[in-house]
């Protein structure tokens, strides 16, 4: 048995969902990205991506900035401080769980 299985209880389920985990991982390594970039990187449909982004925005993990670039609407996405630290905590928790497993 893992030494500290209770860490699994602390896992942030909002981040743990595979699609949202992919979105957060992408945004974690960049400063910001737009909707189209994420859609291509993750091979997702616009509707699916949009619904996951809304959930992340509601949780305060992702900031959605709507702007006009050369008179065309543009949606920029950015991981917030809260999102960044939540993802770091998620990584730590997972690491602890896996490290506790026998080799």
């Amino acid at each position, binding site marked *: 048995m893992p030494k500290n299985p209770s860490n699994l209880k602390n896992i942030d389920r909002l981040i743990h969902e595979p699609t949202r985990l992919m979105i957060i991982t992408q945004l974690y390594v960049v*400063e910001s990205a737009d909707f189209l970039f994420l859609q291509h990187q993750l091979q997702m449909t616009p509707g699916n991506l949009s619904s996951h982004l809304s959930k992340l925005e509601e949780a305060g993990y992702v900031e959605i900035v709507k702007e006009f670039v050369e008179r065309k609407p543009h949606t920029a996405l950015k991981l917030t401080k809260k999102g960044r630290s939540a993802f770091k905590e998620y990584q730590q928790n997972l690491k602890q769980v896996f490290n506790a497993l026998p080799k």
Partner: protein
Amino acid sequence: MYTAIMIPVWISAKKRITMPRIGYVKFRSRGAYRLMAVFLGLMVFGLGTSMAFTFASSQGWALTLKNLVVLNGMIIIGVAAATISSLFAYTMGLKRLYAYGLLTLVLFLTGHFITIPFGYFLVTIGLVIIITGFVLLMRFIRKYPITQGDKKNAEKSL
């Protein structure tokens, strides 16, 4: 002059061709620092070389230096071009720049031993870069057509 023309063309091409197809991403500062480090390194190297040449000239070695540069000019240009291309390839993660650097090095090394007019080398390298760029552009445009509709609606709903 080349930079003055190419940078606006490059920015405009990015806005009109790349961004509507694959979107836009702003990387965190680490990549920018790397590029800045390469630029600074090249500037320091250039300044150092010119200072060394000035010093050598003041010591009366001007003729020896001139002969050295003229006699090995092709090798010097080839190595310099390959080094600069490799630095940019590493910094920007563009593997084809390694190939361009290697091609330049091979052509200029060949030119050192075989007498062929200098212009021919430049035309060959230019043609290879233009043709490769054109082929890559065509492949990119085919692979990533501009899509609207669904994406616009989904973005609006955010």
